C-alpha cells in the first residue's frame, strides 16, 4: 500500500516522473502499430454501416487508405498484428491510469471542469490572439488538461469499441451499450481520426515549446525547495 509518507506530493516531483515518460514513449510505437494494422484491416471493407445500408453521413465510403499508412500486408497478417499489440497498448494504458490514481498525479494532469474550464477558455482566447497574456498556470494549463484528458477518454473508448468488434456476441452487453456492431466500427474509426488530429496538434505545440519535449525525455528539474 502506498502511504502518504512515502508518496511525494506531485508539486514536489519532477514535471515528468519516470512512469509517465515510459508509458508516453511506449505509446508512440504501440499507437503507430495499432493505427497502421487497423488501416490494413479497414482495406478489406472500407465502408461504414451494415451490408446494403451504408451510413449516409460517412463521406469516404469505399475509399481505402494509401498503402504507406498500412502494416501487415494482408487481412490475416494485419489482424495478427492488431490483436497481438492491442494487449500491450491496453496494459500501457492501465499502468498509466493506475499510476495517475495512486500517485496523485491526476490532480495536476486531469481536466476538472470547475477548476480548469475558465483557464481553458482563457488559454484558447490567448492562442486565438483575443487575449494579450497567457493565464497563469502550473504544470499544465486548462486547455492542455482538457486535451490530455480527452485523449485518455478516447483511448478508453478505442479499447471498448475494439473489444466489441473483436467479440460482439460474447461481450453482448458492451455491444448494446455502444449501439451495436456497426456503430462500434464507426466509433473505432472516428477515434483513430481524432487521435491522429490530436497528434498533429500535439507535435506542432511541442515544437513551439521545446522545453516540454526535453522534460518528457529527461523528466525535467525538481522544483526548488
Amino acid at each position, binding site marked *: 500500500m502506498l502511504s502518504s509518507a512515502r508518496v511525494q506530493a506531485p508539486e514536489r516531483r519532477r514535471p515528468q516522473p519516470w512512469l509517465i515518460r515510459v508509458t508516453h514513449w511506449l505509446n508512440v510505437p504501440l499507437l503507430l502499430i495499432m493505427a497502421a494494422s487497423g488501416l490494413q484491416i479497414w482495406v478489406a*471493407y472500407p465502408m461504414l454501416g*451494415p451490408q446494403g445500408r451504408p451510413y449516409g453521413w460517412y463521406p469516404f465510403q469505399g475509399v481505402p487508405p494509401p498503402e504507406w499508412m498500412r502494416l501487415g*500486408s494482408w*487481412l*490475416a497478417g494485419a489482424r495478427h498484428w492488431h490483436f*497481438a499489440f492491442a494487449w500491450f497498448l491496453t496494459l500501457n494504458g492501465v499502468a498509466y491510469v493506475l499510476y495517475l490514481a495512486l500517485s496523485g498525479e491526476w490532480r495536476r494532469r486531469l481536466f476538472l471542469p470547475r477548476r480548469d474550464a475558465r483557464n481553458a477558455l482563457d488559454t484558447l482566447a490567448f492562442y486565438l490572439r483575443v487575449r494579450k497574456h497567457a493565464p497563469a498556470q502550473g504544470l499544465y494549463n486548462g486547455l492542455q488538461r482538457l486535451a490530455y484528458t480527452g485523449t485518455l477518454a478516447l483511448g478508453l473508448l478505442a479499447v471498448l469499441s475494439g473489444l466489441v468488434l473483436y467479440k460482439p456476441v460474447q461481450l453482448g452487453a458492451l455491444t448494446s451499450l455502444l449501439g451495436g*456492431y456497426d456503430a462500434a466500427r464507426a466509433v473505432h474509426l472516428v477515434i483513430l481520426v481524432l487521435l491522429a488530429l490530436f497528434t498533429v496538434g500535439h507535435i506542432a505545440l511541442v515544437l513551439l515549446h521545446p522545453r516540454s519535449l526535453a522534460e518528457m525525455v529527461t523528466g525535467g528539474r525538481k522544483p526548488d525547495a
Partner: protein
Amino acid sequence: MPRHLLTRRKALLGATSLTVSACDSSRPREGFLGAMERFNARAQAALFDERRLAPELPPEETTPPGKFPEYFVSDTVPLAPTGWALQVGGMVARPGVLTLDALQRLPRTDLRIRHHCVEGWSAVASWHGVRLSELARYAGADARAGYVELRSFDAGYHSSWDRPSAFHPQTILAYGMNGQPLTPGHGAPLRLYSGVKLGYKMVKYLTKVNFLPEPTGGYWEDRGYEWFAGV
C-alpha cells in the same frame, strides 16, 4: 562511457531485428505473432460461454435482397452433385448418409442473427435447419470427440470447430434462408450457420461432418487466418 553506449546500441539493434523477424505478416502463425495468436485463441476459448446467445433480430433488420454477399472459392458457383447426401462419420456410433429429406425430418431451428465477416462487414438474414448438436445426438457422437470437421464440394473448402462452439444452440446445419430453400450462392443444399463464429468458419456446400479427437485446420485457417475465430 563509450562501451556502455555500444552495448546499449547493440541491445537495441538486436531487439529491433528480433521484432522484425518475429513479426512476419506473411507467416503470422510463427514467431512472436504466432505466440500471441495462440495466447489469443486460449483467451477466446476462455471467454466463450455456451449459454450466451447472439441476439435474435426483428425482421426489419434483414439485409435487403441481393445485398447479402455470396462467397465461394471455386471459379463459378458450386452446384450440388446429383444424388447429394450428407456423410456423417468419425467417432460416432452410427456413421451414415443423410439425404436432405432425412435432415428435414430432424427437429428444425430458426435463427435471425447478425453475421460477422472477417472483412469487417455485418449482414442479417434468417436461417433454418437442424442443430449440429441434434445431428451429433442422432449419429451418437462420442463424448471424446472434441472437434468437428466440415467438408464441402467447393474446391476443397473446409474448416474444423471446437466442440463447445459446434454444439452451441445457435450452430445449425442450414437448408433454408429467409424462409426459402438455400440458393446455390448461399451454399445449397446445406451449409453451416452460427451466431458464435466469423463467416469463414461457416462452411457452405457441405458434404461431410466428422466428429474427431483433433482439430484439422481449414481452408483460410491454413493460409494464416485465426483458427478459433469466435465472435
